């Protein structure tokens, strides 16, 4: 019995330690950039489940939702929330399509510069292809198991909505593990990816309603 208690304690301590991983300045930024670039180039599709947590200073607990994410080159992305509601959004570079509990709406992305920038930002974040120093001021950090790119948008249109973005990459395969979109220090959205599958076959029908 005491072994079980010690085991549980060890797991809890490890979990807390993993959540509070210490990040320091990245040692070899060029190796990281090359790894990310190679990963983005070799990835033709991604299928993953995701957990989204919205933290607001006025709420004691995060607002949680979850679902499936599909990405297929060139630039097609679908976020499908399945809990606690059915809501799907498709970005294809030209329009944004939303399926809200069966009601479908679409908007041309090119009509809005901000929409276009946010669309590009989301698609590039998912691929890991966000290290564009003409669009962001970037700080590179690393921990034992993760790389972290802290991006501050240069563009004022995006800055109105997002003050900075933290993108965490797995060290073993350079894939995106989680994204934190900050509106302020206390208000942010955390998206964590799980069950990632790369270069699997995804039907084009997945991106149409």
């Amino acid at each position, binding site marked *: 019995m005491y072994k079980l208690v010690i085991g549980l304690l060890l797991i809890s301590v490890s979990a807390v330690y993993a959540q509070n991983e210490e990040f320091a300045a990245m040692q070899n930024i060029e190796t990281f950039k090359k790894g990310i670039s190679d990963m983005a180039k070799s990835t033709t599709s991604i299928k993953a489940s995701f957990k989204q947590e919205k933290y607001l200073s006025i*709420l004691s607990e995060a*607002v949680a939702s979850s679902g499936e994410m599909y990405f297929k080159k060139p630039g097609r992305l679908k976020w499908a929330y399945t809990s*606690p509601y059915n809501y799907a959004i498709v970005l294809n570079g030209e329009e944004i399509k939303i399926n809200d509990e069966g009601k479908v709406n679409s908007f041309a992305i090119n009509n809005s510069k901000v929409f276009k920038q946010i669309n590009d930002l989301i698609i590039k974040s998912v691929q890991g292809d966000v290290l564009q120093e003409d669009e962001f001021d970037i700080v590179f950090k690393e921990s034992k198991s993760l790389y972290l790119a802290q991006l501050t948008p240069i563009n004022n249109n995006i800055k109105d909505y997002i003050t900075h973005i933290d993108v965490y990459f797995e060290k073993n395969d350079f894939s995106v593990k989680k994204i934190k979109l900050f*509106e302020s220090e206390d208000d942010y959205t955390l998206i964590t990816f799980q069950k990632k599958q790369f270069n699997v076959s995804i039907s084009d029908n997945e991106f149409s309603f």
Partner: protein
Amino acid sequence: MNFLSSRLIKVILFFSFCTLFGKTRAQEFLTPNSFLDSGKPLVYNAVFQYKEYSFSGLMVLKKQEEDYRVVLLSKLGPTIMDFLLTENGLEYITAPEVMKKKIVANLMEQDFDLLVLQKLEDEQKIRNKGKGFKVKGKQPIKIMLDEEARIIEAKTNKFFSILKSRALFYHTNDDAIPDEICLSHKFVKMKIEMNLLRQ
């Protein structure tokens, strides 16, 4: 003895009357409260409809001291709008420029005041009227209660106005928190439908 008994009965009757009268007076002044009075934040799944267009997001409502905080979130996470409803009106914390235009801000204030029942803050302006209450002021409203004294309807009560709004509050549970809220307008094809996600 008889004299004493009769005096005693009179005293008891007097005190009973005072207590009864006191209770009746207190009931007259029992005013309805906003469902947000506990200060606990509520999260609703909200659908906004204007003519054939619709948009959905999450709406967080919270009472902060005497003010009411409303935060509208996109389902992808980022905040679209964040504002306070105070006794002096609507104060934006974050909002797109278009929402800051006076006519839009006024309509927002009227609708969200009704939705969070902000007008009930000033008890002096509340008058009992039939099965419901009237709240006097620059933007008078009328509210109706169910048998359990929960607010089931609130509507603007200004005779000469084209912007008449009405909020319906539906309860599927026994508590005072509405599980569904529907806000609509009499002359404008615009409405908000909300379903409680979390309290």
